[in-house]
């Protein structure tokens, strides 16, 4: 029995996540992401890997999407509608709600703005979403008779989940992206001691141990506060979902606590829509928001209002969240150009910026930017960088492994060099084998599955009643008949087995002759043997029958004189198959001879 993990997209790479797991004959696809860096066919996973000919639906048992980021779900409509897949797709409720918005947005940008053809349509997104089955946290979903999946909380973004996939007693846990430290709006990932055979973990920050989140938050708030007090404007370029909400909550509570009056705006559109879902899925957020939402839903912002283009020219301090995050286009860039000239203002980059974007340029210290139309923009405003990332760091990954206690670990979604380090650490600390397949590489892991067997209660009780109380540490020996029939295993008592199979009972007896040198009469020998056995076998019932034979439990011992040599007595020991253990012990005992001193 084996698993194999095939990375059509994401092995030792951050980009498209798409993993194929085959577990005990069931094939499951984990995530269906796209690569943001490419604009051609390479952006989607190559699904021809999965099956050369034949339909995907026949081959795959289900698809699981861990969260709504496009590198985890971007290729879904392409996969289900254009390549063709009709089986179930599983995701959590928030993911199901937010995913289509993002896909639609993505489609709009590629098709409407860049004018690409041969891309999925809005209708395809809708059709694709119809195939989605939503799951709750900790709900065990039976995909078919054997395959079951269960979602665990993963932090990271709203609705992110880790999935346990189980067939029989073999199981895999796929973490997706997760976060082991709680933030302002989400809790920490949590899993029980499910001891899976394989844990597939992301490893974005395989070589990083992060500082406490509080320092970063404090710094952020202090900078914003100072600028606002000075009368400056703060621009925070963000992506619509995820960090934006965390920062909103952070600023909102700070404003509330400190009684600040300066307005905060966020760009309308996507963020507004997404906030609506954050309001709805309160149960997926952290302790504070969950506890206080009865009084007030934290996502019903009091201080944060929707942004209008005209506000950018308003005098006085303000804070604006604008999309996109890397300052490469759109509203954030517009505002940036307006405000860049004033040294009282500030721009805070809350995340990573790709090379070539304005964001990257200003972060690397460039003060004069060349804009389109040969304009030169002088940046006088302050530029700050704050990392708010929601992936587990090396310690977090180790902590999750400690919680779940897997037998094998497989690292994906990270850079090869970094993963190498973590792999070595995992093997050293936990003594479990760790894998890190490259893209398109298949890893096979062998397991020792335990096979469940049904046993009738009567038999179980009867067998446990014999001997000592059950002990966790020691395996217990049981007697019964194993019936393998119709793909199921049953342990039943022999009588019942005979009855079921319609067989007559046969008795198997072992008989053994033991020669003993004893010159005395037969009955005296018998008596000596009897005394000897009685002395040795204290716990068993040893009886001397009137016809000159001895019984030990059900074992019969008879003594006769040897036909040739009167000094030698032949002991006939006979036992049934069930008493094999005792019988062989007895013969061995008697073969040693009788003790000399017989009183």
């Amino acid at each position, binding site marked *: 029995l084996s698993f194999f993990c095939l990375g059509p997209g994401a092995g030792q790479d951050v980009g498209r996540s798409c993993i194929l797991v085959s577990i005990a004959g069931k094939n499951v696809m984990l995530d269906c992401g796209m690569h943001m860096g490419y604009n051609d066919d390479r952006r989607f996973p190559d699904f021809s890997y999965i099956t050369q000919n034949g339909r995907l639906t026949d081959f795959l048992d289900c698809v699981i999407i861990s969260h709504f980021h496009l590198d985890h779900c971007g290729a879904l409509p392409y996969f289900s509608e254009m390549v063709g897949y009709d089986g179930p797709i599983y995701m959590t409720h928030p993911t199901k709600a937010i995913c289509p918005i993002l896909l639609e947005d993505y489609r709009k940008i590629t098709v409407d703005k860049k004018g690409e053809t041969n891309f999925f349509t809005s209708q395809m997104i809708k059709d694709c979403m119809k195939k989605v089955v939503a799951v709750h946290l900790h709900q065990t979903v039976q995909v078919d008779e054997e395959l079951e999946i269960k979602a665990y909380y993963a932090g990271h973004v709203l609705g992110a989940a880790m999935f346990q996939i189980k067939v029989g007693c073999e199981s895999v846990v796929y973490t997706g992206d997760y976060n082991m*430290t*709680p933030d*302002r709006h989400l*809790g*920490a990932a*949590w*899993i*029980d*001691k499910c001891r899976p055979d394989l844990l597939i973990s992301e490893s974005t920050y395989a*070589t*990083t*141990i*992060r*500082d*406490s*989140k*509080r*320092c*970063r*938050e*404090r*710094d952020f*708030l*202090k*900078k914003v*506060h100072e600028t606002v007090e000075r009368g400056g404007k703060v621009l925070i370029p963000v992506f619509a979902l995820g960090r934006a909400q965390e920062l909103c909550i952070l600023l909102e*509570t700070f404003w*509330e*606590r*400190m*009684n600040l009056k300066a307005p905060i705006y966020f760009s309308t559109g996507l963020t507004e829509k997404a906030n609506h879902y954050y309001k709805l899925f309160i149960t997926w957020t*952290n*302790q*504070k928001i969950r506890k206080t939402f009865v009084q007030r839903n934290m996502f019903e912002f009091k201080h944060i209002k929707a942004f209008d283009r005209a506000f950018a020219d308003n005098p006085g301090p303000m804070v604006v969240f604008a999309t996109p995050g890397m300052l490469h286009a759109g509203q954030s860039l517009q505002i940036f150009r307006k405000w860049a000239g004033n040294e009282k203002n500030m721009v805070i980059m809350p995340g990573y910026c790709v090379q070539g974007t304005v964001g990257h340029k200003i*972060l*690397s*210290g460039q003060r004069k930017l060349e804009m389109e139309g040969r304009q030169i923009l002088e940046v006088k405003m*302050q*530029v*700050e*960088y704050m990392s708010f990332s929601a992936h587990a760091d*090396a*310690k977090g990954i*180790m*902590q999750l492994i*400690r*919680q779940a206690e897997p037998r094998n670990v497989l690292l994906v979604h990270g850079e090869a060099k*970094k993963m190498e*380090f*973590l792999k*070595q*650490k995992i093997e050293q*600390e*936990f003594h479990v084998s760790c894998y890190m397949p490259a893209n398109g590489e298949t890893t096979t892991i062998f397991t020792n599955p335990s096979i469940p067997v049904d046993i009738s209660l009567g038999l179980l009780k009867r067998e446990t009643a014999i001997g000592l*109380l*059950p*002990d*966790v*540490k020691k395996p217990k020996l049981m007697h019964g008949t194993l019936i393998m029939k119709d793909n199921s295993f049953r342990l039943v008592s022999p009588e019942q087995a005979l009855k079921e199979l319609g067989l007559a009972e046969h008795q198997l007896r072992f008989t053994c002759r033991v020669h003993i040198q004893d010159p005395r009469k037969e009955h005296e020998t018998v008596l000596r043997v009897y005394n000897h056995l009685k002395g040795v076998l204290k716990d068993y019932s040893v009886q001397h029958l009137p016809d000159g034979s001895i019984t030990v439990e059900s074992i019969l011992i008879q003594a006769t004189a040897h036909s040739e040599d009167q000094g030698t007595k032949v002991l006939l020991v006979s036992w049934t198959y069930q008493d094999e253990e005792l019988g062989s012990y007895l013969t061995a005992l008697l073969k040693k001879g009788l003790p000399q001193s017989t009183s």
Partner: protein
Amino acid sequence: MAAHLKKRVYEEFTKVVQQQHEDLSAKKLRLTKPSKSAALHVDLCKATSPADALQYLLQFARKPVEVESVEGVVRILLEHYYKENDASVRLKIASLLGLLSKTAGFSPDCIMDDAINTLQNEKSHQVLAQLLDTLLVIGTKLTENPSVRMRLVEVACKHLTDSSHGVRNKCLQLIGCLGPVDKGVAKEVESQAAKDVQKIIGDHFNDQDPRVRTAAIKAMLQLHERGLKLQQAIYSQACKLLADDYEQVRSAAVQLIWVLSQLYPESIVPIPSSNEEIRLVDDAFGKICHMVSDGSWVVRVQAAKLLGSMQQVSSHFLEQTLDKKLMSDLRRKRTAHERAKELYSSGEFSSGRKWGDDAPKEEIDTGAVNLIESGACGAFVHGLEDEMYEVRIAAVEALCMLAQSSPSFAEKCLDFLVDMFNDEIEEVRLQSIHTMRKISNNITLREDQLDTVLAVLEDSSRDIREALHELLCCTNVSTKEGIHLALVELLKNLTKYPTDRESIWKCLKFLGSRHPTLVLPLVPELLSTHPFFDTPEPDMDDPAYIAVLVLIFNAAKSCPTMPALFSDHTFRHYAYLRDSLSHLVPPLRLPGRKLVSSPVSPSITPHEDPSQQFLHQSLERVYNLQHLDPQGIQELLEFTIRDLQRLGELQSELAGMADFTATYLQCQLLLIKALQEKLWNVAAPLYLKQNALASAAAKQILEETYKMEFMYSGVESRQVVIIHHMRLQAKALQLIVTARTTRGVEPLFGMCEKFLQEVDCFQRCFISELPHMQGSFVDKLLDLMPRLVTSKPLEVVKILQTTLRQSTFLHLPLPEQLHRATANIIEPTGESDNPLRFTSGLVVALDVDATLEHVQDPQGTVKVQVLYPDGQAQLIHPKPADFRNPGPGRHRLITQVYLSHTAWTEPCQIEVRLLLAYSSNRSKASAKIPKSTWSESLEAFPQSENGIEGTIPFSKPVKVYIMPKPARR
């Protein structure tokens, strides 16, 4: 069997009848109820089905059973138990047996044998478990009897092999509660059963059922609590349990490890997989730290809490808890804390402007990095960042406790505590501020830390701000910039929240007096004086200006060079403030100024021995004058009282003590005066005027004694006796006066009886103190008691009069600490001329803000009284949540009082004051009345008749101007 039952029933009945006879003879009427057991028996016999029987039993359980009939009821229940086939009914009976044996005053040893017998034939596991529970109840009632305990433990051991977890659970519980603690005694009783209980329990640490494992650990802890010294061998077993799959087991195991680490802190344990050895307490500390990152938050809370109480841990282990090696791409990275520190020491202040400022520096040796912390590494870092605020609070508390005992650790944890000021949950923030205050003796804040601390001053929560002011009162600041920063932030706070005025001034007072040398260079800037030009005189009513002056004057107290920097108007302002805000502005020795003539306050002198001596001397003097002439006694007492009162005013530390003694002496003086009146011997009608004096004296003494008993904290039982004694004397006086004035004897009967009852009560309550009271009124009275009881009222009065005169004056021993409860209403101030207008018939909310000092249990005792001009008084009980506890012995009441009245023609003043409610039932003297545990007994205990409830006003009344307008039609 039936015959036997019937007999029982009859016995019950006859018993009742007999009681009635007794009652009759005593000429008292009492209602008797038909016997419980009889009724129950009838009911149970009527029951046709198990469900019916169950209903009857349930109904029966709701009513209490008298002690006398418990045994009968138990017998009847047992009869039914044996007859019953249905397990659920047997279960209920078993649980009833347990409940019944809890009845106060009932000794269950008579039913123990029966209870044990029932165990023999029981098949149902649930019933077995319930029966064992019953045995546990019986056992806990008979703890003094070792043989009973041994027997029960044996029974429990026998059932330990049961296959049901519930039964094993109960058995372990029973062993834990009753197992022999003292081995020596156990061996004498019975050697066989004296098997090592620890071993028996320890065997079940590996039970297959997690509930049983938990019960085993709990039983072990129970044994520890009962005083058994646990063996060290358990330690390794317990360590294994830390990796259990179930959270209850882990949680209990953490406790067990903690207990063991406290028992054997110094013993050495080996580190597995290496040859090294470490102290057990360090090892345990490391293990518990590990549990701070457990999967279950219950365990995390437990672990974080316990960490705080592990004081013996070596310091390098302790410091590891705050250590978390940061890295980025395999390169060592400095934490933000380290960076801040470096920036600070290099003289540069705050930046972070460059990207890559936090860029990682040196390469890390990949082999040396330990990702999953093996020891205590970073436990607190994780705990403080936890998802659940319960864990965070526990971690902050633990930090506090550890930092209090280790100054170096305190210094290290500072950064983390400061970070917690930004937590999203207010309770956590508040807790960390309090923690910081508690450890503030050990620390000095760096400027950047101070900056973060001060940022919280803008918090909109009043509690947070006030806690922060408290913190600033006792912080050490290292630089003058720090002081300046603090002042600026506090002033900002003042403009934003003007209501914080008092608290900010107070804060600046301490800040100034703690850092005189740091304030000195700031003075010219703060007072905005200029070397050449005269600057305009600031507005004297500006709270911000007052705040600055408070800071400067307090610093000037111990810095004599400072006044030279003051300008003329500063001196004038000083004189004004010294008068108006004397609690904030200290007396200063100003050169060439006559205005400030007040001497250096005695409170500066560190040792207050002279004044303490004075107190004791004056008391000695009073006690020695038994035989002076009456006039002399009176005069001396008057002088002493005057002295003491003055002392109390001068010396705030001794105020409580001085007031207390003065009050006592005052009582004595009143008593003597009342008795000295010569008119006692004159015929009754003539001394009406005299009566007025004596009875007024009696009344006043009574009042004063209540004040003495309830208004002072720190009063011990020795003082309580004397106070009660004084009260008794006052009551005697009252009786005598009444006897003199009233005609006829009838009313005296009742009074005499009551008085004698009180004497009796006094004797019962203070029997242990009586030997110290030789020659006193009570002592003499008790000698005469037999005579008093039999004699007529008039005689009693006569005897009382003579004893009262002859009795000696009791010494009042002083307790170490005595504080008078005081209250000060801050809000409303009573200065406003604008009446509070509201429509009559509706309510208006009046904010009341008061500080209370030395009030015990303010939630229960402090009331707000509102007096309306028409004499109507309203008593308001503030909610328990309205009381905050900012420091030991201090409370703050912030509440709203709702006022309402019918329309007035013009505005008028109402009075608001605080009252201290007392009732003599709560008195420290009265013995605790055992509460019945048997179901929810609705029969309330009769209020003891002499329970006097009353209130003492203990704050100055404040006048509030209000105006209820007639409603407009």
